[in-house]
């Protein structure tokens, strides 16, 4: 994939990830307050926004839960690495399965009340899944651009 596409992809992910923290940016520009309810509604499409699962900092919450924040940070983090090191290796499915196992296990175990919900565990397992998930997304996009060029 061309570097310019990688940069565009990184910026899309960056904007999406920054949007999660829009509540925190209101202090920088108060006009952002007009967008807050719309953004909250926007992110509700992709997250349950359960209040006790949101990341809180200085009495302000993120728009998505700890797990989703982890997933998006993972995607952003790996996309940043791909800006520096260009690789397009074919990925085995087992890596995606392995990376999703901790997240799925956490969802099942805390849903069955084996242990209480932990934002740290949710965030970490999401981060792992997002980081590995990006490799598949990147490969898919790479393949798409190759096919379009043909």
């Amino acid at each position, binding site marked *: 994939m061309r570097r310019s596409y990688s940069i565009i992809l990184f910026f899309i992910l960056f904007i999406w990830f920054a949007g999660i923290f829009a509540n925190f940016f209101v202090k920088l520009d108060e006009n952002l*307050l007009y967008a807050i309810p719309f953004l909250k509604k926007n992110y509700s499409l992709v997250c349950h926004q359960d209040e006790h699962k949101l990341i809180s900092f200085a009495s302000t919450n993120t728009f998505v839960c700890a797990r989703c924040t982890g997933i998006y940070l993972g995607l952003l983090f790996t996309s940043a690495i791909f800006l520096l090191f260009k690789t397009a290796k074919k990925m085995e499915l087992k890596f995606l399965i392995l990376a999703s196992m901790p997240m799925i296990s956490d969802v099942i175990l805390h849903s069955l009340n084996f242990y209480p919900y932990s934002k740290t565990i949710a965030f970490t397992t999401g981060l792992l899944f997002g980081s590995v998930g990006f490799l598949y997304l990147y490969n898919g996009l790479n393949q*798409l651009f190759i*096919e379009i060029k043909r």
Partner: protein
Amino acid sequence: MIKKYISAIVCGFGAGVLQIVPLLKSFACCLFIPFAAFLSLLLDQRANKSIERITAKKAFTFGLLTGIYAALFGSVFEILITFITKHNDIIAAFPQMQKMIEGFPVSSDVKQDVLKLFQNIREDLITKGFSWLYTLTIFLNNFLVNSIFGIAGGLIGAQILNNKLNKRSDEN
């Protein structure tokens, strides 16, 4: 044309409905739409008894269509339900939102403006069951987010399905 993409319509419909059903909504997850896109590719493969590799172009198209149909059905149902019941998330969450907005360290003029804007939307929804701004927001949000997540799901899903095909052909 419709027959060719019937699996995308079916999965898009399912995902769209899941996004608006009150109880299921609380389980909303960023993997709903990508999973629907993956499922649409799988259903298409099964329906056509295809053993060919799924191209990225096909994965992109199915993912995009699943996202678009999910957005279409989700938006239409949400607007329709709001119109009939004259009640929705915005109305239910208004006191909470009011509290949240008042908690921001910004000038009271801006706070009043924002609250007035949402008070108007809320009143329109309670009295008429319809608000132009709300409808526009729902459509824009749903189409943008669902399309992107659908494409991602389609592209990743195709690799999962192709991986299975590769394994099967290796075994044979």
